[in-house]
């Protein structure tokens, strides 16, 4: 098991002042797997992503990426190693064109350093027509897709997706699911934080459920949905 783990999070703790954001978190993600990260608001999901991406440093515990200790790596280092992430609230380079948004991560983040795949990525997320547009002028759904495209442009091994479907209408969700599946076919490993249950159930292999910073359940979507602790966390 251990040799195929792309990412292993080992007893990671993070507190902000008196608040425990992540407590004794341990889990692994296997190569090519889509892992769902679920939990009520404030459960610590985004904090966990930030700990993996290097935005925060854990108070204790370790994060291993492809066997390498990345616990104390800065965000640009984790990107160089092959971790890309999207933000829950889109964070584009507002004054740059859509294509230049991708060009930044492709030139700075990609190990290959080539940019010929950018148009393919834009095609994948349906942004080809808008590639010359200034990112700040895009509609919300396009910004969500741009987040994903920018993450892909660094040619990552592992992608952290923070609520890609949040804010989209029901009509748009099948398309987002489809894109997620395409990304998976590219051989990427994905950690997916999601509130939209349909996306969660259909897209992921395995779910880790968090509540108040702790892991309360782990398993296939079917197993997790029946778990008493999970039901208690969600419905009280």
């Amino acid at each position, binding site marked *: 098991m251990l040799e195929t783990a792309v990412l292993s999070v080992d007893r990671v703790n993070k507190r902000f002042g008196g608040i425990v954001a992540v407590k004794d978190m341990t889990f692994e993600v296997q190569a090519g797997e889509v892992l769902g990260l679920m939990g009520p608001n404030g459960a610590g999901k985004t904090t966990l992503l930030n700990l993996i*991406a290097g*935005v925060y440093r854990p108070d204790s515990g370790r994060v291993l990426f492809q066997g390498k200790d990345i616990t104390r790596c*800065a*965000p*640009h280092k984790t*990107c*160089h190693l092959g971790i*890309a*992430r999207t*933000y829950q609230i889109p*964070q*584009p*380079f*507002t*004054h*740059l064109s859509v294509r*230049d948004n991708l*060009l*930044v*991560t492709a*030139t*700075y*983040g*990609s190990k290959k350093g080539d940019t010929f795949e950018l148009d393919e990525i834009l095609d994948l997320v349906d942004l080809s027509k808008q590639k010359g547009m200034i990112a700040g002028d895009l509609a919300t759904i396009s910004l969500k897709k741009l987040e994903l495209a*920018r993450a892909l442009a*660094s040619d990552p091994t592992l992608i952290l997706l923070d609520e890609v479907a949040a804010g989209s209408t029901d009509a748009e969700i099948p398309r987002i699911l489809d894109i997620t599946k395409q990304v998976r076919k590219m051989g990427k490993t994905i950690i997916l934080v999601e509130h939209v249950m349909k996306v969660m159930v259909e897209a992921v292999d395995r779910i880790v459920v968090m509540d108040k910073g702790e892991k309360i359940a782990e398993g296939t979507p079917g197993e997790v949905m029946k778990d008493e602790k999970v039901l208690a966390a969600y419905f009280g």
Partner: protein
Amino acid sequence: MKIPRLTTLVSVAVLVVLALFPVIGIPLTWLNYLFLFFIYLALANMWNLLAGYSGLICLCPHAFVGLAGYTLAIGTWVGVPFQVGLIAGAVVAALFALLISYPVFRMRGIYFAIGTLILPEVLRVWFSFWRPVGNIYQGMGAGYSVTGVAGVTLGDTYWLGLAIAVASIFLVHIILRTRLGLGLKAIRDNENTAASGGVNVFQVKLYSFLIAAFIMGIAGAAYYIYSPRINPVGGFSIRWLLMPLMATVIGGEGIEEGPIIGAAIVTFLTFQLAPYGAWSLFIQGVILIAVVLVVPQGIAGFLRQVGAYRFPLKLFQAAEGKIHKNLK
């Protein structure tokens, strides 16, 4: 719209005419005006590189100007030729930028701005007491005169200023089209996203900071060859900050031609308002506020918005078409 090649030709023609000014007997006052314009232009271009393209509101150009000026002046006192002093001044300014980079880059946005603002003040006080060479006061306070520049004519300094200004324009033009420029714009727009996209934020900021400090330093040193007397109040004067700041904001921040338009306006105003003494900066400040309120994108931004460049570009294109026809 594709930029016609004639645009480049016109720019080159303007440059040649400017370069010929000292030899065709232009009034000396014009040369004085233009020299100051070149210095302000170089400073403004670098200020624009930092504020407009890197998101660094750097309020310490007067630290770089003063340090370079003092390096030049003190250098000439220990026998360093002023040509070497010019470069040495720029190098010292860049080294100072390197020294302060770690503490000031820990601050972002407005905190960075305030952090940089206190540095020239510290230097001003330091240079009021520190007198490494010479024991006879030259000029007021702890001032120095720059020696060994008596043979330098106004024409020479004019050409030096022109060269520095043109170099600063090209430098910004080139940087914006390289990997570094892309990284800078990314940081300006969103530092966190830039970092998670693989941009080493500290390193990229440092590069632009060092380049700007070097060019600001060389522009400052050139000024003190032109006006060979430096003292702490003048060398670390806030006008070295206000001129490029006003030129950039009035002309258009984050637009390549912005500082050129802005520096021309600011230089013109400086001379027109000179009779009003201390009121001069006040009036310029009022104009700055008016511009920010009426056209927040600056004059160049406004010109772009209304498509003012379209007409001359079309003229150029038409002219180019005719030239091609005649050649055939």
